[in-house]
């Protein structure tokens, strides 16, 4: 019954508004059935891309294709899309059932058929029993589920979600994330999910598109994005990180970066000419090992300056010279003021 999703192709999208270039030549290919997130801070253009794909905004230049069909100049109601908004956008003068059935009614199905399918969509999101309620009588999470049902019941080729969970409480957000993902996988719809929350993007997506100021910075799987950021912006945006800069020196014992008066070992994946432009390195807080035995030779010496209890783990901020190194570990027994040795290897950020 469900039409399989279609691939999306975005070619060289430019959007100029007043005198600013909101989108500066965006290229993106989304495979059929893929769940991708567009991640970035407010104003980076991620919502603009979504609206252009939806047909609610039009690009200054560039193309959008859904499947093999160029939809660049088609208005929203002629594209086969489903759209879920941040504030749900449920029509207050219609019940949940009527909201969901609306799209079906437009497709000239019989009243009974519309009702049947709408109820089924609501069943899929476990809201069948609230079908005759009005949006004002539903909680935030319930409203969002109705919005999802409304968008998916018409069997769109593409599902677009614009920060759909930002308006919900944290605990509710996690549950909704799982629900959205499971619905998407069950229906196999190509999905673009816009968010500014990197945790959310990482937990849901097949691939993530990181954006900044109208440009795509990196497109990769969550794992690769996390361990191989293409620049400092991505390294900092996706997860916590410690950043280092400088010139590394290659010696027979290995490659090292001198910082804060200490040599830091650098994993050296490629040949380096000593000298030249500064390089950037990073290490994730959970990759750092804390050695409590100070007599051990390896690792830099530091003092615990701050300790933040997170529940499942602990954040330590360790003073090493001028720098405060952020370490994340399960062992919460070290006190502030204590001295430890930090063992880690720096990873180079390669663009």
């Amino acid at each position, binding site marked *: 019954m469900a039409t399989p999703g279609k691939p999306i192709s975005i070619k060289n999208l430019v959007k100029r508004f007043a005198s600013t270039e909101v989108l500066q030549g965006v290229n993106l290919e989304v495979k059929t059935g893929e769940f991708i997130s567009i991640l970035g801070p407010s104003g980076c253009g991620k919502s603009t891309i979504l609206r252009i794909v939806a047909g*609610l905004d039009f690009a200054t230049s560039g193309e959008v294709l859904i499947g093999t069909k160029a939809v660049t100049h088609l208005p929203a*109601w002629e594209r086969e899309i*489903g759209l879920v*908004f941040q*504030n749900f*956008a449920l029509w207050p003068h219609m019940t949940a059932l009527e909201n969901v059935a*609306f799209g079906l009614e437009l497709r000239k199905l019989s009243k009974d058929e519309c009702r049947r399918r709408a109820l089924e969509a609501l069943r899929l999101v476990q809201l069948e029993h609230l079908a005759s309620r009005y949006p004002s009588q539903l909680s935030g999470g319930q409203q969002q589920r109705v919005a999802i049902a409304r*968008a998916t019941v018409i069997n769109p080729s593409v599902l*677009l979600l614009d920060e759909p969970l930002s308006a919900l409480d944290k605990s509710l957000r996690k549950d909704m994330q799982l629900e959205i993902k499971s619905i998407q996988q069950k229906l196999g719809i190509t999905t673009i999910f816009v968010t500014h929350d990197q945790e959310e993007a990482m937990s849901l997506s097949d691939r993530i598109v990181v954006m900044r100021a109208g440009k795509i910075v990196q497109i990769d799987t969550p794992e690769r994005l996390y361990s191989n950021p293409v620049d400092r912006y991505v390294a900092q945006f996706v997860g916590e990180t410690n950043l280092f800069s400088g010139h590394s020196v290659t010696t027979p014992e290995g490659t090292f970066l001198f910082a804060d008066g200490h040599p830091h070992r650098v994993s050296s994946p490629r040949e380096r000419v000593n000298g030249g432009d500064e390089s950037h390195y990073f290490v994730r807080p959970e990759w750092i090992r804390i050695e409590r035995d100070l007599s051990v030779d390896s690792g830099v010496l530091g003092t615990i300056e701050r300790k933040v209890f997170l529940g499942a783990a602990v954040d330590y901020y360790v003073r090493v010279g001028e720098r405060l190194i952020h370490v994340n570990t399960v062992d919460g027994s070290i006190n502030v003021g204590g001295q430890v040795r930090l063992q880690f290897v720096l990873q180079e950020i390669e663009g």
Partner: protein
Amino acid sequence: MAHRNQIARNVVLVLFLGFLLLPLLVLVAVSVNPQVMAFPPRGFSLKWYAEIFRKEEFLSAAYSSFILALATSALSVVLGVLAALGMRKLKGRASGVVLAMLQSPLFFPAVIVALAAFQIITTMGIEVSFFALLMAHVVVTMPYPLRNVLAQLANFDSRLEEAAMSLGAKPITVFFRITLPLIRASVIPAFLLVFVLSWNNYTVSIFLAGTNWVTLPLQLRAYLQYEYEPFVAAMSTVLIIFSAFLLFVSERFFGAASRGQSK
């Protein structure tokens, strides 16, 4: 300290309301006076009210006013709502200019509009008097629904319309199934307001008094000349009750939206 403030507050408010409403209440009191003169009234009688319905001119004037008001409301509201919806899409300076222009009748003395209507009739003949009257009323009242609907639209989430479009609804469908039902709260009070404005209008209508269209306010004034005071008072009371009722309906069911307030 606060108690003293409360007393001051209540005194001021009583005086304020009294200033605005007492005259009307006096009128009502006069209308039930069996005798023609003398205030305070001695006794109670509804005979003047019975008189009203025997007056042919009154009933025909009421009918004229009603038809005119109905036509004015329909036309004025349709034009105003359409303009408000259109203005929503205009940005920046363009919308400011259009708004100023569409609201300009509010700033012009009603006499001018009346003179213009009068002019039209004298040159084109009495046959066009209803039309001229209607147009004059529409011109004078249209800014009101425009402002009311515009105020409500300011708070209107366009994503509600976008959601419908994303599901495949063409703009016409969106208008009738989504937009219109949702602005109903400001359209209906606007309709009532325009109805009342037209119903009560004197300034424009008097200029056209020589024609077949004698509206109720005109008739009322004429009665002042040769009818007894309590009779006119009774007629006035009927009008007061009618107006208060319309206002009550507007406020009760549509609350703040009727004032064009969205806050």
